[in-house]
């Protein structure tokens, strides 16, 4: 958490110190660390090398690709807002209550993180599908959720929520309740304390959580594929479009790679945006 909240100049100082510190580590540590870096970086290099750059403009400007990108960005944005609305209060409850409740809630909140997203998709179908637990009720009300854009949003919210809850809860607990108690002593109502003390103090964690949450929603595939399907324009988000392009009949793999490049660019843009915000906040 601390690395997420440090400002740029401080990070620089830590880097120098880290360098000195690294000399005291056993030398062999460098080998697995280097292999780790290679594992992270090499696939992307390979992707760039294999890319048919001439075909990129055509691949990413096709109506299908733009449609998928638009759908991905809009559903991920809606999911992120939903995660904020549900996740921040949940994080508050976990961070500020005592006894067994926070432990149980934290476990539940992290469940989607450790489960394969496919399992999440099946679980969502079992709840909201036509033959699911709420299926009949929904059918009577004339509401169909699976295989609609709403299903995409629900699936993304389901898998992304843990990222927000964990980040915000960690930030809230790191900040503690001292400032809140002082503020209450100055006559601030609970809502004023929340708005003017709790939220600003947890802002770095909130920001980091929001970005992670958005990125996770953007990349969501498994639960979406099962629960929302792969209908162009309605549920075919970027990951599904990439999968379709990769496996689809008559479509070249290059299209899938070009689309992947697009998703990588979006992800990097989001990370850079967060970095600049963080530097502003530190000032």
């Amino acid at each position, binding site marked *: 958490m601390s690395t997420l909240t440090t400002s740029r100049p401080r990070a620089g100082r830590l880097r120098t110190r880290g360098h000195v510190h690294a000399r005291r580590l056993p030398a062999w540590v460098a080998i697995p660390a280097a292999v780790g870096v290679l594992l992270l970086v090499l696939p992307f290099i390979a992707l760039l090398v294999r890319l048919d750059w001439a075909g990129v403009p055509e691949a990413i400007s096709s109506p299908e690709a733009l449609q998928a990108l638009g759908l991905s960005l809009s559903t991920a944005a809606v999911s992120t807002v939903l995660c904020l609305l549900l996740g921040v209060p949940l994080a508050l409850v976990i961070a500020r209550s005592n006894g067994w409740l926070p432990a149980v809630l934290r476990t539940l909140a992290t469940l989607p993180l450790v489960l394969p997203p496919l399992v999440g998709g099946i679980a969502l179908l079992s709840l909201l599908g036509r033959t699911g637990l709420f299926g009949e009720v929904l059918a009577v009300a004339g509401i169909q959720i699976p295989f609609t854009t709403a299903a995409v949003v629900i699936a993304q919210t389901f898998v992304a929520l843990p990222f927000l809850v964990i980040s915000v809860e960690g930030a809230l607990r790191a900040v503690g309740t001292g400032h809140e108690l002082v503020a209450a002593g100055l006559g*601030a109502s609970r809502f004023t304390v929340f708005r003017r003390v709790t939220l600003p103090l947890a802002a770095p964690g909130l920001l980091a959580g929001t970005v992670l949450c958005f990125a996770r929603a953007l990349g969501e595939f498994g639960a979406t594929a099962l629960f929302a399907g792969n209908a162009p324009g309605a549920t075919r988000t970027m990951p599904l479009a990439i999968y379709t392009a990769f496996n689809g009949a008559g479509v070249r793999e290059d299209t899938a790679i070009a689309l992947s490049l697009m998703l990588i660019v979006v992800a990097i843009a989001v990370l850079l945006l967060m970095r600049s915000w963080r530097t502003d906040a530190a000032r």
Partner: protein
Amino acid sequence: MSLKVDIRTRVGSFALEAALTAHSGEVLAVLGPNGSGKSTLLGTIAGLFPAHEGHIKLTGRVLEGPGAGGNRRVWLPPERRRVALLGQRAMLLPHLSARENVAFGPRAQGVPRTLARERAMSWLDEVGMGEYAQRRPAQLSGGQQQRVALARALAAEPDALLLDEPFTSLDTQTAAQARRLIAEQRDRAGVPMILVTHDPMDAVVLAARTLVLREGHVEQQGTTAEVLGHPRSQFVAAMAGVNLVAGVAEADGTLRCADGLRWVGRGEHVPTGEAATCVFAPGSVRIHPAAGPSEASAANSWSGVVAVMDPVPGGIRLFTAEYPRLAIECPSTTALALGIRPGVELAFSIDVDDISVRCSR
């Protein structure tokens, strides 16, 4: 205005029972070691934990206690108590400037922005921080932060101010400034203040009255002079940093202790055969090189082998193996001149005028 507290409460497995009153324009010092219940006491007054029995009244308002008509207890939440807390750490809001921190209380209570800022500025001037109004807490030193925190507490116009070891994290010089500031505001702001501390000097400098807490109960309370000058137990004497010896008056006017030492002092006349106590400061003990083997028969003198040496501001405090309860303090120059170190035998004496005698009942 006055703050009246009479509570019996329990937080976790810790039980606290305390009755005290702090008047406006007065500091009541609460002395006690860690775990004596100081923080529980302040937390209960501030409304962080409920008291199970008893009441807390602040200038006619019941913060907590039996309800007027029904059997439900009254319990005001912290934000409605008008009790401000100044702790060990300044706890300024890091995302707000010094001025906005001080304006926080007035703003939270509905004062318009401009007026709240004006009020904040005048409080910052009051604590000598006017020129730092635009600084963020991270750009201020610990002492400056604590001054802003005091301004913030007072700007909220509380009916009582709770000070929880506010000088502990400051260096000596800054702490002295902060004490002066508190003394000024004690006289000017005219609200009851409770100062929790483990340093008897805080009580001496600031508080007219002192209360000593021990394991959740009040061990002794009274005027600071009385409590620190005449502790009624070894525990309070240790808190006050003085030596307390108890004995029985002999026919020759000396007080004989169980350990064989005899004492003569000033103060109350003690009838022969009655129990009495003597109090003296560790610093008023004179130290001499050991003259010879066992001549400890004279009153107000004894000898012993140095067993423990602790640093204290300006010098050292030592205890002998023979009389481990008697603390002796001397300037570091004296310690060096006499070659004081563990294992050295020394003779000690004290002036009759430096011992205060009091009957035990």
